[in-house]
């Protein structure tokens, strides 16, 4: 990577210099888009306690990538197709109540992974080495074609997750109530599943399939350490997502480290810092008798907390 020689450059001039390279412009643009899109979808999954759904879809997308190799088709679009099917199947299983969520998710994880490895080995001259860049991300090799796909898909994701935020909030917060208000709950759930699948495939070029879910979940969890409402959590999570993905991509250019891992570690670091800063805030809220989200023990002052709480 050509950037390794410039590690001593000042950050300010460095960023400008970074933009001289078309591959870095594409890398930063895709990082920006995924930093926006991933937490915008992730917040609904976290709200519904399906934080690991993104991971499940990521594993299924691997089968799609492998199919792309086998059929000599574009792996990104194949991944979109296959992970959409996986996400929809997952949602149908969940809503039918026929399978427990975690069991269905486990099937998705292992089925997707094994399918990917099997299929890529069937492809002429293929081996699991072909999958590596998709597993761990390779943001600096994003091609102009990829950028078109990434821009289209993230536009779709942002349109759905921001435009229908009240509706998706209602569905994820209290599904039965949402049905009684006459919302098309099933359609919204499927739309959310498809949106999550699109996000995963967009993000796979940046952070890699195995770390996709981190960018959907960690900015949201970090944001809710300090926020009190859904809208503020959403705004803050998207901000965090953009900050860590841009910072991570820039860092990986200068320090010659893998971008996906850098982004995720930065997100975890941000979470730790925000949690520490939020401690006095939580204490103050607890003292006011409100409780807030400081912890289960302060949540409902009227109810004694059982001593043997797990």
């Amino acid at each position, binding site marked *: 990577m050509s950037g390794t020689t410039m590690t001593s450059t000042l950050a300010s001039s460095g960023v400008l210099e970074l933009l001289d390279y078309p591959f870095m412009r594409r890398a930063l643009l895709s990082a920006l888009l995924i930093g926006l899109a991933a937490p915008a979808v992730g917040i609904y999954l976290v709200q519904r306690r399906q*934080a690991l759904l993104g991971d499940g879809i990521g594993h299924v997308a691997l089968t799609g990538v492998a199919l792309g190799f086998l059929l000599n088709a574009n792996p990104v679009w194949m991944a979109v197709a296959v992970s959409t099917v996986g996400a929809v199947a997952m949602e149908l299983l969940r809503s039918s109540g026929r399978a427990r969520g975690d069991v269905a998710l486990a099937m998705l994880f292992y089925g997707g992974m094994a399918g990917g490895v099997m299929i890529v080995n069937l492809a002429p001259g293929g081996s699991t080495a072909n999958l590596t860049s998709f597993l761990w991300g390779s943001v600096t090799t994003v091609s102009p074609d990829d950028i078109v796909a990434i821009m289209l898909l993230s536009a779709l994701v942002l349109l759905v997750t921001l435009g229908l935020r009240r*509706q998706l909030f209602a569905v994820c*917060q209290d599904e*039965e*109530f949402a049905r009684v*208000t006459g919302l098309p709950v099933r359609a919204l759930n499927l739309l959310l599943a498809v949106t999550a699948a699109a996000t995963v495939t967009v993000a796979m070029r940046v952070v890699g399939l195995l770390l996709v879910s981190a960018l959907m979940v960690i900015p949201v969890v970090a944001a809710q350490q300090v926020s*009190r*409402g859904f809208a503020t959590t959403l705004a803050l999570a998207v901000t965090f997502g953009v900050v860590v993905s841009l910072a991570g991509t820039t860092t990986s250019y200068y320090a010659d480290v893998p971008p996906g891992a850098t982004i995720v570690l930065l997100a975890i670091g941000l979470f730790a810092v925000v949690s520490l800063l939020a401690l006095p805030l939580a204490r103050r809220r607890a003292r006011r008798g409100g409780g807030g989200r400081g912890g289960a023990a302060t949540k*409902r002052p*009227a109810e004694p907390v059982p001593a043997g709480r797990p």
Partner: protein
Amino acid sequence: MEREAGPEPVTELDEVTAELGGRTVLRGVSLTVGRGEVVALLGANGSGKSTVVRAVVGQVPVTGGGLRLFGHPVRSFGDWSRVGYVPQRSTAAGGVPATVREVVAAGRLARRRLRPLRRADRAAVDRAIERVGLAERAGEPVDALSGGQHQRVLIARALTAEPELLIMDEPLAGVDLDSQRVLAETLRTQVEGGASVLLVLHELGPLAPLIDRAVVLGHGRVERTVDRPALLPEGSHPCHPADELEPSAEPTLQTGVL
């Protein structure tokens, strides 16, 4: 929302049967809520009270008999903004914090569906929050509220669509006295405005003076019906056999025949 003495009841159950997970829960329940009426469902745990209200809001499929809302079979009923549903309060919190205003605004979607909320909708949300006495806490996370306050949030969420029929499942469960008072007052205002109410109660409590008819369920059937339970002599409970009163004006109540 005018109180009409029209013949069409707000909701009408005729020998309704329903099952949950293959187990028969309702064995022929018949009851009617007329316009402007407040009907309470009473009965022991497992008697089918909650299943009745969940069937009325279309969340438990009816396996037999007829269930009509505003004259339409529930299966094809589409005008859900006329119905305000207050589910049993769950203690499970969502994974992301939400403010009182955000939760209440979800109820307004009954009128907006997939369209964004406008200024008038936001005003309706604020009115509903004010009506349950939580205006000062509108920006606080619902997790920070007491059980009674949380219940008031769920009621405001149902009221914000300005429904003609309110359906409430155990609104008094785990609710402090202060919130019980607010709740009774809110219900009174709604009924005075012409709304009808069907609610599941464990006991009549502070709502007794509002209730036009109490329907006692047992084993998925209507055991008895009591008109104006608050007027009964002290100490007599609607469950008491002596409370079998003369049949009400409408031929609405029959015990199940199964």
